[in-house]
């Protein structure tokens, strides 16, 4: 979230699209209710299903699953053509006036630089026109046809209300009603927030859906303001934290990135990630990258990381490509992998196309499962009848299953969607011999290190030199680990302006990332977490819930990254002169007397930068402003464009009916062998979408009695029209088939899923809750990922669970 849960109460309008907070994030949704009750805020829900969020909305518009970009692109067109944009904001804080390279273009659904063989783009033309001084050329009059504003206007003019309705199946009047309501928030004293979740991410064009939403918010001037922002409602309790800590194939802690194999030159690696300002007077905060990187290497490798060995740069693995979860199962299925460790992750249930995942795991030599619960993955080799029909005697994978603790049995911190790191305390001992995760990792690591120390082996240096300063090596304590990722001074850290002034003494905990140094005098495991555990102690454990400004900021409750800031980009809540656009909801303001920024939040800005200096509020971008034109940051185009889901009920993309290359996302992640696994609408005519229920959490709570009592059995939701067509009544058992497999479930016939008219034909949607499996105390069921396609988003490789094709038939009732 750019903002945070409680801040939703400051909104005037709430758009929930690509999510269903009332059911999936119930206690966070209460802040929507609060905004409605006390601010008279209105709620709009756009969703294929009439969800419980929709049930309390002021306005609901249906949409075909997977067509969100078309809807939002139509909204952009509406805002631009009706002049409902925040002029001051877009002129001062965005790239509206920036000039784009002359050879960038877009034709028949494809951007310049496309290679159909590689299913990807060469992005050389996706950039700015630069002057001799290295700065971007601009046209403040916005008349130049190559300026971002003009290009964007032309790009989205094609998304007329008629076209939106044709693609999305949303009735035109409903679409226009939503546009009108949203357009009101272009005023300075009206703010909209957008709340989204997996309903936007789990698509082959998911990143661009989110981007289109962010563009809407920028046009309206709603980013950086209280009650505004782009609010990703993360799924798991600490998925935010694990991403912040960089536990993804291509990342390092704090969103630093691992080097590609071509990046053999350390200086060039740092240089590329420390961009110089692209406009005069801009901060370009990532110029500090070397400080963050060197400090992480000092935290990991201690004295072994030196200036001479480039702080052990060579010790980090270099990428040939991203080995994300889809790539890994592709390689595993091809027999290229031997071992796999699943720590609190159940990929047999949560990765797409179960049959492929199961086949892949069967080709491993060994698998290790670390989990508090008996997961499906840990028993992928076991015969569980129709739900997991395999022959154990034919599966040679060795499997280890190691019991770990759960939340109640450990200390530590989790990062909520608000980016708040909250400490929790151990209440009881775990059952049996279960151990804490860090104890298990330590056990494995120390054994490996012992073997490497004794027998040698392939490149032992990083293993032998990994810092392990824990008082009990077999049990690194959460406190020690938290202090390590916060960081400490390895030598006195002095003020860059006055070398006699010591900011932090040798050995002390750091107060924040501003104290990091690139000369090896600081160690910090995750720069964005610096400040969480300073000399003041564990700030994540703070429990003062006072709210002095009355807008829900609670700065003394736990600790938020970065720098305890609660609303990102908050400088943009003020006009260029530094005055809040809406003084009744002040986050920060320029204090001319003291020459500093201050207010109810930690300023997301250089604290002493006078507004007259003209520094832009988006300090992480070298431009200093937000981008409508994504330059080369996205894999599938600088402007979002509507493409059909990989499996779509339409033969063509209505935007580009003559170009088969532009039917689905031209840069989506598809492996060669998987093209045949996609179904066609003649055999699989219905759109399927998967989702979560209020009573269950993924595949965990089917192990819990209470959840299993209130939602005991697998079901699918079917609209009344489709049910009538297929002779299905509520309570019947139905078989739902995709081109990859089938599930059997009880049918719930409902008004909540309506048929939509898309390109002149009726499109039906089948709703598939995900929570059942063959382990647990609920009634056994099929893993829904038996059905889903093995295709990923072009940028994040997130699989397309929200829009694919199925067929449905009634079967004889089974007892």
């Amino acid at each position, binding site marked *: 979230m750019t903002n945070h849960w409680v801040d939703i109460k400051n909104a005037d309008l709430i758009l929930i699209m690509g999510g269903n907070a009332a059911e999936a994030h119930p206690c966070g949704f209460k802040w929507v209710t609060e905004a409605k009750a006390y601010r008279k805020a209105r709620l709009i829900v756009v969703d294929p299903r009439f969800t419980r969020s929709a049930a309390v909305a002021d306005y609901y518009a249906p949409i075909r699953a997977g067509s969100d970009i078309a809807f939002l692109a139509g909204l952009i067109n509406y805002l631009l053509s009706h002049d409902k944009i925040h002029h001051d904001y877009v002129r001062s804080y965005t790239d509206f006036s920036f000039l784009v390279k002359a050879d960038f273009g877009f034709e028949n659904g494809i951007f310049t630089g496309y290679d159909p063989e590689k299913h990807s783009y060469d992005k050389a033309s996706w950039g700015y026109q630069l002057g001799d001084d290295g700065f971007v050329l601009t046209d403040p009059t916005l008349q130049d046809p190559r300026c971002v504003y003009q290009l964007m206007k032309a790009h989205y003019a094609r998304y007329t209300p008629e076209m939106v309705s044709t693609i999305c199946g949303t009735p035109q009047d409903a679409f226009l009603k939503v546009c009108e309501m949203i357009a009101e928030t272009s005023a300075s004293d009206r703010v909209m927030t957008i709340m989204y979740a997996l309903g936007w991410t789990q698509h082959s064009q998911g990143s661009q859906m989110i981007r289109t939403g962010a563009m809407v918010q920028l046009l309206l001037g709603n980013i950086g303001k209280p009650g505004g922002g782009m609010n990703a409602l993360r799924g798991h309790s600490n998925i935010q934290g694990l991403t912040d800590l960089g536990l993804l194939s291509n990342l390092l802690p704090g969103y630093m990135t691992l080097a590609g194999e071509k990046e053999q030159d350390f200086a060039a690696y740092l240089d590329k990630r420390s961009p110089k300002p692209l406009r005069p007077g801009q901060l370009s905060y990532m110029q500090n990258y070397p400080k963050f990187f060197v400090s992480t290497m000092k935290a990991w490798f201690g004295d072994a990381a030196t200036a001479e060995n480039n702080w052990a740069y060579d010790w980090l693995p270099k990428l040939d490509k991203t080995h994300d979860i889809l790539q890994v199962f592709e390689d595993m299925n091809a027999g290229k992998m031997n071992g796999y460790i699943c720590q609190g992750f159940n990929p047999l249930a949560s990765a797409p196309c179960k049959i492929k995942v199961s086949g892949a795991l069967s080709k491993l030599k060994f698998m290790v499962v670390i989990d508090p619960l008996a997961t499906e993955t840990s028993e992928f*080799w076991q015969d569980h009848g129709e739900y997991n029909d395999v022959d*154990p005697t034919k599966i040679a994978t060795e499997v280890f299953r190691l019991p770990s603790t759960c939340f109640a049995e450990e200390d530590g911190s989790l990062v909520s969607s608000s980016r708040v790191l909250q400490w929790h305390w151990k209440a009881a001992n775990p059952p049996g011999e279960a151990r804490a995760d860090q104890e298990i990792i330590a056990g494995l690591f120390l054994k490996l290190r012992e073997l490497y120390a004794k027998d040698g082996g392939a490149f032992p240096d990083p293993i032998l030199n990994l810092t392990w300063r824990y008082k009990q090596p077999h049990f690194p304590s959460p406190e020690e680990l938290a202090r390590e990722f916060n960081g400490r001074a390895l030598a006195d850290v002095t003020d860059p302006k006055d070398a006699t002034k010591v900011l932090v003494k040798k050995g002390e905990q750091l107060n924040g990332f501003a104290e990091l140094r690139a000369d090896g005098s600081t160690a910090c495991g995750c720069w964005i977490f610096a400040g969480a555990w300073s000399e003041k102690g564990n700030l994540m454990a703070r429990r003062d819930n006072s709210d002095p400004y009355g807008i829900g900021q609670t700065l003394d409750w736990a600790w938020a990254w970065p720098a305890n800031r609660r609303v990102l980009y908050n400088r943009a809540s003020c006009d260029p002169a530094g005055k809040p656009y809406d003084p009744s909801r002040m986050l920060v303001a320029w204090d001319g007397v003291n020459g500093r920024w201050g207010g109810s939040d930690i300023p997301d800005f250089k604290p002493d930068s006078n507004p007259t200096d003209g520094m832009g509020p988006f300090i992480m971008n070298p431009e200093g402003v937000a981008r409508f034109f994504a330059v080369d940051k996205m894999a599938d185009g600088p402007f979002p464009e509507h493409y059909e889901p990989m499996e779509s009920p339409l033969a063509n993309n209505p935007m580009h009916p003559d170009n088969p290359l532009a039917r689905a996302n031209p840069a989506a992640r598809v492996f060669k062998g998987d093209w045949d696994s996609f179904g066609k609408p003649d055999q699989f005519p219905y759109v399927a979408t998967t989702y979560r229920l209020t009573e269950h959490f993924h595949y965990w709570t089917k192990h819990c009695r209470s959840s299993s009592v209130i939602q005991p059995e697998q079901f699918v939701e079917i609209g009344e029209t489709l049910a009538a067509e297929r002779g299905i009544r509520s309570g019947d058992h139905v078989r739902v088939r995709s081109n990859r497999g089938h599930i059997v479930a009880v049918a719930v016939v409902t008004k909540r899923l309506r048929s939509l008219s898309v390109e002149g034909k009726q499109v039906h949607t089948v709703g598939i809750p995900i929570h059942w499996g063959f382990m647990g105390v609920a009634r056994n069921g099929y893993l829904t990922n038996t059905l889903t396609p093995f295709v990923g988003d072009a940028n994040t490789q997130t699989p397309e669970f929200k829009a694919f094709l199925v067929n449905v038939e009634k079967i004889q009732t089974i007892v």
Partner: protein
Amino acid sequence: MNLSRRQFFKVCAAGAGTTSLALLGFSPDAALAEVRAFKLANATETRNTCPYCSVGCGILIYTLGDRSKNAHAEVIHIEGDPDHPVNRGTLCPKGAGLLDFVQSENRLKYPEYRAPNSREWQRITWDDAFTRIARLMKEDRDANFVATNEAGQTVNRWLSTGMLAASASSNETGYLTHKFARSLGMLAFDNQARV
């Protein structure tokens, strides 16, 4: 002392994780007035957060006893933390049922091993598990570690073993796991963020 239950907890807590009424030897007037002692009065209260979704609701876990050496601290009750600024004491049906997660009959209790082509688990010791897994990992890493690629560039990577990390585990676990995986040269490394 005239304190409401909430004030009382605030006074006792003062930033610490746990409080025990029994330990302190007194309890709020309201509870004393009850005909039968308030069941949780003899319990220890521990502050925690819900491990399910990212709302991050604050919870209070009640365990039997006062944490003295031989007392088995069994979790008997979990409820929303009224002081938490986001959930203010409420929980959704998942969070309200957290006790059943802690006590689930499907909690794993011992390290287990499934041999190739076998139909069953066998119980093993932790030491046995660590030793065998470490040997398998080392054998694979030593055989398949790539120090330089075909172009002769230094790459120091190990692709034939991978890992999925847990996005309900703590930052402290996640941080240690990251150190562990990268020191081995792993790239086939992800968490639930992508799914």
